[in-house]
């Protein structure tokens, strides 16, 4: 399969997972995994920033439409997409740089992928939860929600990536 087709399939798969499964889990107000961020995380490393930004925007808009929260996910996704190149630069050494590669456990190793995913998910969730609440009362409660949800989202993304690479 060609790469764009793979990404389109991944996009729909993640959206369906998010909208049908994870939006309905409602395990607790503190744990809301948003696994669809994985789409932004695993885009090819060499993809220009403008493309990443537009794809992030579109991803957020789609989730917003289906969860009735216009703007919240869009804001968080564009934020994550914008900081992605900086995080990649932090995490990748010059020798290991290969523009065709997409971040994954197979390409970069478990530890690298875990750290990168954690950072991306944290940025996304931080902006998402504070924009959703839109107030600073209960600052630490929101922060706790961010941290717990980040852990869970990261867990599911790593699990999903393991599953992907072992097929």
């Amino acid at each position, binding site marked *: 399969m060609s790469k764009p087709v793979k990404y389109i399939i991944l996009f729909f798969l993640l959206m369906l997972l998010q909208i049908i499964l994870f939006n*309905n889990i*409602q395990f607790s*107000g*503190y744990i809301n995994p948003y696994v669809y961020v994985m789409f932004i995380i695993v885009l090819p490393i060499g993809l220009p920033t403008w493309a990443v930004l537009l794809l992030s925007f579109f991803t957020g808009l789609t989730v917003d*439409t289906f969860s009735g929260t*216009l*703007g919240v996910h869009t804001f968080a996704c564009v934020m994550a997409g914008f900081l992605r190149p900086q995080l990649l630069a932090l995490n990748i050494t010059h020798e290991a740089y290969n523009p065709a590669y997409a971040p994954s456990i197979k390409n970069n190793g478990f530890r690298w992928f875990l750290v990168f995913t954690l950072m991306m998910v944290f940025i996304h969730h931080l902006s998402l939860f504070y924009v959703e609440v839109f107030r600073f009362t209960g600052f630490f409660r929101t922060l706790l929600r961010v941290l717990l949800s980040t852990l869970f989202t990261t867990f599911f993304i790593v699990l999903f990536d393991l599953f992907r690479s072992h097929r």
Partner: protein
Amino acid sequence: MRSLINFLIRHSSLILFLFLEGIAIIMLSSTHDYHNSITTNIFGGVATHLNSSVQGVKSFTHLRQINRQLSYENAVLRQKSEGTQKILVMRDSTVTDTISRQLYSYIPARVVSNSVNKQKNYFTLDRGFSSGITNGMAVISPEGIAGVVVRTSQNFSVVMSVLNLDFRQSVKFRKNEYFGSMTWTGSNHSFIEVSEIPHHVVVTEGDTIVTTGFSALFPEGVMVGTVAGEPVMGGNFLTMKVKLATDFKNLSYVYVIKNFYKGERRGLEAELTNE
């Protein structure tokens, strides 16, 4: 000119970033409480249908519990209706009775999508203005208070859940009529906070809290919940935790309440504030 173009090219991703975040912020502020959302109108149909089918599967798995709730409610209603059959109306129908006037009518509706894990929760009903639902109508579940309609379309309506940081309602003790206001704290879907209760009121755990008729939204005396835990003193007022009667995680069938005299009452009250 060339340096300007160079500048723009060099910072193109930053400019695009600011532009896209700008769009997101505009969308956010224009839909601050879910009204007027453009995409809800455009894609709303698809989204509602998908959510509706998910909810269909969920409500199928909850059938046993829903049946129990409904049969319990039937029993309660049957008890109440002895001798008062004309006043109590279940369907959206009008009663012609020269002695008692009908204040409220109840429109039954099914919940097609719901959430409890956000800070601002909304749920969607399968009835819209074609069934007579308009913005600002109160929504109750068989067990008690549920929310307020904030947006309607032809066949659907969106309800601001009690589990929403923006939800406010005045409530009182059933035993002694002292009133205060209720808000959701955002942390747990089965508890709300009741505040502004005068400090001399004796509160015991398990006291029943019901709505007041002050806002013309909810009828007086709709069940809210029971006091759970010791009240906390703040200023001259008490604040306490109240366990909600409605189980929002398992909300399937609700009633939308139409108040026949809301317009008249609001008009009269507005006259006073205009003076």
